[in-house]
Structure formats: structure tokens, C-alpha cells
């Protein structure tokens, strides 16, 4: 895999995710918005070696963690928590690695399905870790509301995943992922 191209794509995708969030968002407080980074993680995981996949997912998850802030109650400030998204992305990457042998890799709908389920896993890990943290830390956290919002976000992630799926041959070639992985199982 070409890591420099991956770094540039990660930078562009996270910038687009942050910038376009409000345009694409809907629901109460416009809280339901899709993830653009997760389809990139799923695309990498579909073709890269297991190790490359986990490292790429770790990097993307760390980027998401570092660009998210959590409010502390009673105007107590904000905190950046490293870990929840990183672990979630690695779990999603592992899920794609497990599933990719059963999927039709070049079908854009494959990326849609894997992105939606992957986003659900990421959000489940984030929600679980922040719910535990809310027991002893004064973070502003509405567990029930967040679960619903995050479920909506996960499903909505399928939309950008379809677009990424349509250009996946181009992105795959740029990333050097157009060949079957050496260490993983051969996919279609």
C-alpha cells in the first residue's frame, strides 16, 4: 500500500467530513450526519493485508479521536479523548477482514454494506467507552440519545460509501490496492 497516498486521502476525507457535516446533516439539532472516513477505512480493509488494514484503521480512528472534543458539564471546558474511535475503527477493520472473503469486492454495494455495519461497530465502541467514562468523569453524555443518533449516522454512512464504492477502482489504484493481498485471503 502507498502510505503517502493514504495519508493525503485521509487528510482530504476527514476535511470533507468535517466541512460537509452540516450540509449533509438532518434530524434534531442536525446531529445525524454521515461518516466519510469510514468508507475509506472499509475500502482499505477490503484489499490490504491484515496488518496494513489494522494500522490504517488505527491511524484513521486516531484522527477522528483527535478531531472530536467532549464537553465537560457546568461549563467545565472540553476534553479530547484518544482511544474510543481508534479502537472502534480497528474493530471495524477486523470485521471487514473477516467478511471480505465472502463478499464481491468490486460491487459498490459491498462497500455500502461493510461501511454501515462497520460504522455501527465504531459507534457501539465509542458509546460503550463514553458511557463507562461518564460514570466517573463529568462529560456531557446522553447515552440513550447518542445511541439513536449514532445508529442514524451509521445507516447514513451508506450514502457516501456508495460514492466511494463507485470510485473505488480509482482509489484502489492510487493506493496500490488493485492487486489481491499477499497475506490475506484472495477475494473476487
Amino acid at each position, binding site marked *: 500500500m502507498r502510505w503517502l497516498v493514504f495519508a493525503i486521502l485521509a*487528510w*482530504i476525507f*476527514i*476535511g*470533507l467530513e*468535517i*466541512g*460537509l*457535516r*452540516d*450540509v449533509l*446533516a438532518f434530524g*434534531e*439539532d*442536525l*446531529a445525524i*450526519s454521515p461518516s466519510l472516513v469510514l468508507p475509506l477505512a472499509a475500502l482499505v480493509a477490503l484489499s490490504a493485508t491484515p*496488518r496494513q488494514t*489494522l*494500522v490504517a484503521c*488505527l491511524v484513521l*480512528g486516531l*484522527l477522528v479521536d*483527535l*478531531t*472530536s*472534543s*467532549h*464537553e*465537560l*458539564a*457546568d*461549563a*467545565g*471546558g*472540553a*476534553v*479530547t*479523548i*484518544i*482511544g*474510543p474511535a*481508534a*479502537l472502534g475503527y*480497528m474493530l471495524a477493520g477486523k470485521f471487514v477482514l473477516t467478511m471480505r472473503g465472502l463478499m464481491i469486492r468490486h460491487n459498490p454495494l459491498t462497500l455500502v454494506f461493510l461501511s454501515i455495519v462497520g460504522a455501527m461497530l465504531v459507534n457501539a465502541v465509542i458509546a460503550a*467507552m463514553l458511557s*463507562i*467514562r461518564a460514570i*466517573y*468523569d*463529568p*462529560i*456531557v*453524555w*446522553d447515552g440513550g*440519545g*447518542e445511541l*439513536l*443518533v449514532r445508529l442514524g449516522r451509521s445507516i447514513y454512512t451508506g450514502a457516501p460509501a456508495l460514492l466511494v464504492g463507485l470510485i473505488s477502482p480509482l482509489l484502489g489504484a492510487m493506493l496500490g490496492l488493485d492487486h489481491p493481498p499477499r497475506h490475506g485471503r484472495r477475494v473476487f
Partner: protein
Amino acid sequence: MHRSGHSTDASRRFIPAAIVLCLLLGFVPARYLALTGELADKANWIIAPISHPVLRLAAWLEPGRRQQGHSPEVARLQSDRDRYQTMFLRAQAEIGRLRGQISDLQRGIDLNPALPVRQLSAQVIRRQADASGRLLVIRGGARTGVTPNTVVVVNGVDLVGRVIRANRNTSIIQPITSTGAGAIDARIILRDDGFGARCQLRPVRGGLLQGLASEPEDPDSGRIEPIEPGRIVRLADQTWPANAQMLIVGIVERVDSAEDQLLRKIVTVRPRIDPARVTEVVLRITEDSPIPSNPPEGGP
């Protein structure tokens, strides 16, 4: 190409080590996470060149969600009116404060003098919208004199919120409508001379603020002044910096009767500018906040 045994072992241990580290960091209490704020500052600085242009493009592309405005001339006149009214009300509040200060000084109590304000324009580089709150990240931090509690406005008089964390290059703003922002004291302006009703507003869902207010009695005529939708609400909260007083919090959108308190009304206020939609803000920095002449190492 084969790797050496040592590097292969290290390579194998990298992923489990990263997982353990993420787990540990994920549960470290917030008070020990100062370093992650600095890392986030670097990350925000790196993504700013792409996120801010996209935010601006997004704001331009969504006319349906933009504030409904009048003609440019009317908008300019309204802006001037709001600015002068803010100056007038602030002068009134200042006179009241100085009278109190004179009274205190006469009793031998020394108070801080009023501080001059420097205004600094800053780009919004990231917005976050969760069910639990919404924060803004702006380009501009401790290097340019931003400190926690710095007041943030748009259009000169519309209050957005305040800085809750000032990193080296970026700062995090907590809008007044954010769930974690807590209550603010405000005054609903009922007449042009500044006469109004005090209320305490709390953020509620939908980017609104809500609180109880009593309809005040005019001391001259004895008439009760009703609180009606459309009235301007201004900040009158002593826990906020002096330069934030009388800034516009929003407009009264709804007035409902409080079931258990017959003499009070439930007032719902909508900010004139949705904090989640601004792409540029102005920071009101008090001049006693020194700009570090020799910033710490490690930044660009």
C-alpha cells in the same frame, strides 16, 4: 524481502500494544488529559486548510438554511441600530457599575478597573454536533492572546459563546446553546430605554434557550409590561466578562404560561445567529491578557 527477527517481533507487538494504549487512554480521567488537547490542536491545525474552505463552500451552498435576511440596506441599518443600542445599554450598565464602584470605594474596597477590549477575527475550522452538545473549533489560540473565557461574537453584537479551551494554535468555543454551557442570566428588553425583565436561560434541544421570567411593573406608571415574542434578549450575567454584558443573546420566540407559577412565564429564546452555522467569529479579548512574546517550543 525478509525482515530481521527483532523487527518482526516488534512489528507483531505493535498492534496489541496500540490496542492496550488506546484502552488505557480511553479511560484516563479527564483531568489527566491535558496532553491530548495539545495533540488535538496539532490535528486541527493540519486539517484546517481543507476543512475551513469546505465549511465556507457548504455555507454558500445551503441557502435554505441561511438566515433569512432583508435587503442589504435594511440589514445594514438594523445592524447599526443593534450596535448603537448595545452601546447605549452597555453605557447604562457601566454607569450603574461605576456608581456601585464609587460606593464600594467609599467603603474602602478596591475593585478592578474596566479593561479595554481587542477584537480578533477567527475562522471556524471544525464544528461538532452531537446529541450531547456542539462545540466549535477556531483557528487562533494562546499565541494570539486567546484565553479561556474569551467572549465570542458575530456581527459585532450577537453572542455566540465563550472559549473553554485555548490551545497554542486553535481554541474550542462552547456556544451558549450547547448542553454543557449551563444557565446564563439575561434581560428581556421591553422598551428602548433598556427597561426589561430579568430571566435565567438554560439551553434546550433545537438550539434554543428557555427559562422563567416575571413580567415587570413599570415604576412610573405601575403598568405591567408584557413579554411578547420578538423582544430582544441581552446578556446580563456577572459571571461573564464585563465586555460581554448587553450583547444580544437572541429573540423571544415563544412565551408560555408556567403551570405551577402563575406570576411567571416560560420564555423560549432563539439566537439570531445559529452558532452551528457560523464560519467566522470575532473574539473579544481583554487587553490584560498578554500575548506570549516567546511562545513555547513544539509548534509551527
